[in-house]
């Protein structure tokens, strides 16, 4: 028996979220007395995984897997989990992992728990906490199935270093052609994606119009952050839909979320509140966002944001 961790990558680079998954698996392995196996697809820099304690790394290199296909990936993980007798499978909560996980759960007859936020509070019965009601609450879930897939919420557990000397094994797999044909992809060029960003700079209707977004983009650039927006901003066409965050947009669970000219409506907060540190910049001291943020500035964005950007640049110049 073992704990299997699916290590997600992006253009052959291991995603940082994988280190958190391995840290989680390591902690779980102590409770269950099982070995941790990492499954890596088409990645070159697998040695970075050693810092986070896997006992074994299974590495696959096949050009057929260069494009993500949920069906093929689920089939592959299913095969590997059977051959390694993995009863606990740990995956991230990324868009692609959520997509493949539901397929995988049926293939291996597992219970799938999404949005897991902590290590199980009990092993027998197996009870784990997940977030629910769009982050407005948590629930404890009892799993009645022997095989489990836990999809871990980003930034909920943290990263712990734990050096190991894993055995590395290369494997190969065959696939049945999937019914889904990949045609093309359009990537929004040059910008950091909201899902991967450590810092998100988000702005709302307080910015008055799309022509004023340059100060938001400048600040994001300085911080190597992704830009996001409130729902009305994308509805008005000021910013693309892909930047809309909140209960009905993208969820954000980042290290630092900076909300500029956003009032903090319940639907907005639901989607961003699991971010670790929140900063609000708003002219209205009564704006609800001040009730949930860690740091706040009551002030005019058009004055504060450019100044903050200059000061951050000076700070970075000094600290580098």
């Amino acid at each position, binding site marked *: 028996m073992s704990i299997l961790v699916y290590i997600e990558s992006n253009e052959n680079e291991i995603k940082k979220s994988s280190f958190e998954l391995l840290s989680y698996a390591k902690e779980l392995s102590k409770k269950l007395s099982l070995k941790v196996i990492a499954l890596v697809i088409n990645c070159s820099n697998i040695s970075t995984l050693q810092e986070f304690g896997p006992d074994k790394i299974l590495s696959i290199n096949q050009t057929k897997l260069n494009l993500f296909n949920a069906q093929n990936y689920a089939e592959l993980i299913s095969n590997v989990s059977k051959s390694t007798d993995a009863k606990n499978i740990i995956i991230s909560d990324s868009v692609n992992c959520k997509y493949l996980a539901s397929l995988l*759960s049926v293939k291996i007859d597992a219970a799938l728990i999404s949005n897991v936020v902590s290590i199980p509070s009990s092993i027998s019965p197996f009870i784990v906490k997940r977030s629910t009601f769009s982050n407005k609450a948590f629930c404890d879930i*009892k799993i009645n199935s022997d095989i489990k897939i836990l999809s871990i919420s980003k930034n909920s557990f943290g990263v712990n270093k734990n050096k190991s000397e894993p055995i590395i094994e290369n494997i190969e797999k065959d696939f049945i052609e999937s019914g889904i044909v990949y045609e093309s*992809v359009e990537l929004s060029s040059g910008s950091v994606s909201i899902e991967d960003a450590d810092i998100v700079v988000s702005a709302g209707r307080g910015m008055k119009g799309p022509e004023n977004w340059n100060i938001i983009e400048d600040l994001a650039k300085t911080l190597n952050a992704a830009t996001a927006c409130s729902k009305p901003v994308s509805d008005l066409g000021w910013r693309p839909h892909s930047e809309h965050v909140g209960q*009905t947009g993208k969820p954000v669970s980042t290290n630092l979320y900076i909300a500029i000219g956003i009032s903090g409506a319940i639907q907005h907060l639901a989607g961003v509140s699991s971010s670790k540190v929140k900063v609000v910049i708003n002219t209205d001291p009564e704006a609800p966002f001040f009730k949930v943020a860690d740091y706040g500035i009551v002030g005019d964005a058009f004055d504060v944001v450019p100044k903050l950007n200059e000061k951050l640049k000076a700070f970075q110049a000094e600290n580098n």
Partner: protein
Amino acid sequence: MKILVCISCVPDTTSKINFTNNNTEFDSSHVQYVINPNDEFGLTRAVWFKENDGAEIDVISVGLENTDQILRKALAIGADRGYRINQEPTDSYQVAKLLSNHILKYNYDLVIAGRESIDYNGGMVPGIIAEILHLNYVTNCVDLKINENRAKIKREIEGGIETLSCKLPLIIGAQKGLVEESDLKIPNMRGIMQARSKPFEIIEDNKAETKTNTISFSKPDNHKEIKLISPNNLDELIDLLHNEAKVI
């Protein structure tokens, strides 16, 4: 073309989330229920296929009697037939299995569900159905076109949009973007009147197992006090973010 739209009945986004019975049950008093927003995008797209290609639309929900109002609303928006599977939803496996039992009987060309429900946030039901029934499955759909027997789908991925195609039958997970917010259908008087005479069936089916149970709920800890910083002292903010919060 026969379309099934799977509808989850969820608390309105402004609802206060509270629990009763020693934190084991959701407190539904003073809660207004609505069609899950992701499902609403899907339903509107289905109505578009009805108006433009003569598709037939069934809507279905797994739930108890209080779900009927939501299905009636879907009929008023333009669906042709409503089904309610009379079971309290307890987990995604049970819901997906019950929906699969129905889909198997009716041979739909297209099944539309939401990317996720805003109450349970599982993001699981359509994928489980797809795997049980061996249907093609694409989620995070922001565009869907159907030509003859083939679908072309745009799907939102991290940092972009990808285009996929496949044969019907297909099940999708819908989300914002599949139709424009401003095109969402609101039931009008005529629709509401017509809905009253549309077929509506209650299905008794309990042939589904659960793999999980929710045993209790909790709410996030009360937030600690915010630190206010003067706009004239931004160095302090940078210092706090660097030394206290350690995020820059």
